[in-house]
């Protein structure tokens, strides 16, 4: 009897200890190697808004450092008031991070070159996403963060919700014709093609593009003229309004409102979808941002039909 009781106690002890099993060191594989964490991080510094977006979506509230600039408006209310500003998106404040001594630092696309430096200061992971398979990359990051912070279940829900939203957008776009993603900036136009930060519109949603090769070698996309839009005449135009992203509201619409564009089908049929500039241009690999964009795409297709 006592033996059994002792056995039960032992079993109960094991069961009680089980949740803290994740306090065992865990190894995280990421874009620049493998990082070992001794326990669930209690203080995190992110050098990238997409990483913040994903942590926020997972409900993780131990973020103590965020980028100093370019806060996406859709995230602004979520940033802890006492979060430390740790440098620009491209150049994290290495000294500030070192002084704060966080349990985990997250770098990503824009800040990835500071990985060697930061990984010598604190456990650091690189969550850079390959734009050629953007949705899968974002989901892998959510799963990875879920494992680190012991939120596997929530991560699973987010991945499922994202998959469902992509499927919904895919269905909305199906059979609706070709599309083209452009960026407007200071009165000029650029096209975004495969491998760009918005390539998922072509890859994941299956929107047929109007071109075969766009080399998105610089951030603004390839420079094009209004004639390019007139001649390629996509059925749908997706616009990343870089000017609106910095406060010039509706700048892209004013820019497109001209005699040449009035000739195009997408203008005449009102098939222009203005994407959230911050989500498309700044975060692009964040869960909430992607959901915002997907909702805009779905709404755009549904409103027009």
């Amino acid at each position, binding site marked *: 009897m006592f033996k059994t009781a002792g056995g039960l106690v032992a079993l109960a002890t094991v069961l009680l200890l089980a949740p803290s099993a994740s306090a065992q060191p865990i190894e995280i594989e990421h874009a620049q190697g493998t990082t070992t964490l001794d326990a669930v991080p209690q203080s995190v510094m992110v050098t990238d808004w997409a990483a913040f977006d994903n942590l926020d979506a997972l409900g993780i509230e131990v973020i103590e450092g965020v980028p100093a600039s370019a806060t996406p408006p859709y995230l602004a209310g979520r940033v802890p008031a006492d979060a430390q500003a740790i440098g620009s998106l491209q150049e994290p404040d290495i000294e500030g991070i070192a002084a704060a001594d966080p349990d985990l630092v997250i770098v990503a696309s824009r800040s990835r070159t500071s990985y060697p430096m930061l990984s010598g200061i604190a456990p650091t992971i690189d969550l850079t996403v390959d734009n050629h398979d953007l949705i899968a990359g974002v989901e892998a990051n959510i799963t990875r963060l879920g494992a680190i912070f012991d939120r596997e279940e929530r991560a699973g829900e987010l991945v499922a919700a994202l998959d469902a939203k992509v499927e919904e957008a895919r269905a909305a776009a199906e059979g609706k014709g070709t599309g083209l993603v452009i960026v407007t900036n200071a009165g*000029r136009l650029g096209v975004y093609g495969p491998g760009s930060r918005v390539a998922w519109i072509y890859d994941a949603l299956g929107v047929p593009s109007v071109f075969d090769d*766009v080399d998105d070698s610089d951030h603004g996309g390839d*420079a094009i003229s209004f004639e390019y839009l*007139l001649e390629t005449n996509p059925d749908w135009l997706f616009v990343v309004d870089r000017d609106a992203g910095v406060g010039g509201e509706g700048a892209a619409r004013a820019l497109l409102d*001209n005699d040449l564009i009035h000739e195009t089908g997408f203008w005449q049929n009102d098939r222009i979808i203005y994407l959230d500039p911050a989500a498309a241009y700044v975060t692009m690999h964040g869960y909430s941002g992607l959901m915002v964009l997907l909702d805009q795409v779905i709404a755009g297709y549904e409103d027009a039909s």
Partner: protein
Amino acid sequence: MGVVVALTMMLAVASLFVGISDVSLSTLFGAGAHDRAMRVLLVSRIPRTAAILLAGSALAIAGLVMQIIVRNRFVEPSTAGTTESASLGFLVVTIFAPGWPLMAKMLVAAVFAFAGTALFLRILRFVPLRDVMLVPLVGIMLGGVIGAVTTFFAYRFDLLPSVLAWTIGDFSGVLRGRYELLWFGLAATILAYVAADRFTVAGLGRDVTTSLGLNYKAVMTFGLALVAVISSVTLVSVGSIPFLGLIVPNVVSLMVGDNMRITVPWVAALGALFVLLCDIVGRIVRYPYEIPIGVTVGVVGSAIFLYLLLRARGSRG
């Protein structure tokens, strides 16, 4: 001169037929003529070609006027802080009064360009011996400082990509209704021609100018104003086109000498021709995408700039 003008005219006509839309004599006037080709011609092609001719000639003239005022062959708006100042002005007005009409923004940019160039002239007073190499270096350093201020504020206000877009000259966005400010450049060019003799005299120095009965300060201020207006209208309309104002007047000087009455038409025509050529190349090389004019002119221009600098050093032994 006749050859240059004829060549420019020929290229200008050719420029009307380079682009993505099908614009040719047959689509314009042929049997199956449709009004789309004509519309593209009127809305897109003619404005673009006009913008190129206006910006090219005006910027080259701005360089010529600056070189005479400063009495140094190696200055022009982009090597004297003028372009950077105009850019800063445009940024300031974009931040504080984004809703102002383009004309008002351009005026603010012009005021900044004027102030920046005046500052450059003031600094030059302290440059010993007016070393031929030192003058453009001082200008480039001043431009660097002003550019750093611009970058700082652009960064704080998340406007860096916009500033980058202004600073790279690009005609791809030119359409009817979006380049007309450049006609001010033509006005400035004509004024430069009218005042050519005064500038030539002022180029001889304060003492000579004053003894010939001219108001030296007034001539200088007028020259500065012309340069500021040209720099700011081109910056606001199409962006900055580096080195143009430097190489064209120098090449003309090698060809026909330094009498401004003679050189102004040459500089204007060659400036237009050079930009026209670079823009056509930029439109063709990566068709259907474009290479911004700032890049093509920058590549060719910096090579010629280096050649001119080394040549000057060589001739001084």
